């Protein structure tokens, strides 16, 4: 993948979804931007071939999520700006949802975002996060217990 035109097409196709996922996990726009850049750099380095667009998307997300994990494990992290300061909520419902979900641990935030926003089933979330499906389900269960009010009406 060295054709600049194809690279830009790839970036335009996936950058926003990847940025949202990184934001959901890291909670800071600068870190999320760096994480997205790192994932695309890895793509350039590995230049993998994919069986389908779904496979391509899943690969990029997995690399992104692994990059987010590394950032969270770093011995120091720069001071982060609360997400709502960078992207203010447009309604009270949004503010409440962001505050509740931002209070979850990053691992649970990741699962909540991938499940309820990206719509991935638990088996695919397990593949994306490198965890067992049982672990993913446990995280969802715990997060749901804390977000009971927020999840009324969700399946």
């Amino acid at each position, binding site marked *: 993948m060295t054709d*600049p035109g194809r690279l830009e097409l790839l*970036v335009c196709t996936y950058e926003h979804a990847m940025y949202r996922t990184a934001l959901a996990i890291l909670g800071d726009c600068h870190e999320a931007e760096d994480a*997205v850049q790192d994932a695309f750099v890895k793509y350039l380095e590995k230049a993998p071939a994919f069986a389908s667009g779904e496979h391509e998307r899943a690969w990029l997300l997995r690399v992104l999520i692994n990059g987010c994990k590394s950032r969270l494990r770093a011995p120091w992290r720069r001071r982060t700006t609360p997400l709502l300061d960078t992207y203010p909520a447009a*309604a009270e419902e949004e503010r409440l949802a962001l505050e509740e*979900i931002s209070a979850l641990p990053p691992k649970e935030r990741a699962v909540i975002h991938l499940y309820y926003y990206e719509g991935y089933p638990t088996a695919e979330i397990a593949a994306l996060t490198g965890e*067992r499906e049982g*672990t993913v389900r446990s995280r969802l269960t715990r997060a749901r217990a804390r977000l009971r009010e927020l999840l009324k009406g969700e399946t």
Partner: protein
Amino acid sequence: MNGYRSYFDRVRLSEAQHRRLMEALDRTRRTRPAPKAHRPSRWAAAVAACGVLALAAYPIRHAGGLPRPSAGAAQSPAPVETGAASTRAPQAGAEYVLEVGDPFAGQHHSDFSLPALEFTYCDFSKHLELDYAPPADYSVYRLTAEDIVRAVGGTEQAPWTLGWEGFALGGNAWIDGGGALLWAAITGKRDGSSAEIELWLASGGLPPTDVAYEEAEQTEYDGTAVTLYYTDVGSGDWRYYADFMCGDTGVRFQCTSRDQDEAARLAALAVRQIGYGGFTVEGLEPDEGALVYASRRTDLSLEDLRADPLGAWLPAKLPEGFAFESGGRQTMRDVDTLFASWSRGYDYVELSVARFPTSASLPAADLKAGAVTAEALKTFGRYVEDDAGDVPGWRFQFTVDAGAASVRYTLKGLSPEEAAALVNGAVPPAGGDGP
């Protein structure tokens, strides 16, 4: 969650962020070396070089001897269940075995449409281990010979275009609790050859696999996207893979053989089958009488797990920071399995304890209880420096013969010393019934 969704629907990279991203990637693209070129397969190169010879007659060949399958062949895409019936050898009556004869009765014949396909070489040591588990409730049924013929697009026999003469085939179908087909597997060995094939089929997408290679490249055959790759699995065996969709049926084919040309040829013929009707899972509805085993799973709390008779083999003590995640009991015919997992960040400890009926012969374990040392465990582990950015550290997978039970461990993030201490603190000496 509507508030969460509407909030994130508005979140996008700004023009300035996108520009910064593209500038950074452009700098990277211009300064980094190109990715390693893939070595074309020896078989594909031979085809290209030989031209007409590649289309020459393919007489029936029977290599001498029956070499044992390589150890690498044990790493099949099958979701391996403790105590599960083997998907490899046809085990039941004649109605469940398809013996593929020679439609040309030993006469030489030409096969002029052998596709010249390029398989990408993948380094076996760098394969990715994926994890796929079937649903909590599922059943496995044997496929009849008629089922197998239908699945591979035949009428009374397997199509000769597959080149499967000499193979004895069996198959299984996994059906979920609602009666829907999860996937089907057809496997077999060729008489007089080391060749073994596995054909996995699923509806609506590719069947699951627990092994993947990042280097595998996609190409096109007859308008269909196909992923073709091969690897050296060790002990002189080669394995060729072909993954593709046949209409709504997902297909994963693999052939393992000491004869590299044979493995490559059979994989190419499987791909060629796309143009001859391909493979299908339509109409695959096994009879109740063909049930191999049913699996039922119940989730349990840690307290219930420890109170279970098999709970005696759970580790009494885990390294600091690990918390219980989940566990349960699974019953598969005569085999009871207790399973449990703990996690610490992205590290995990998973084990399953399987008790077999006394009449059954236990599967061979990697280690015996009492002989589990840190040094011994290194044989069943690998230290990973870089796994797509995942945390470096040891990963282990091994089984321990604990006399009345077999305990399987999957560990990530423990040192060999911690792993040995975990095992030795739990499994009673062989022959004991545990605390």
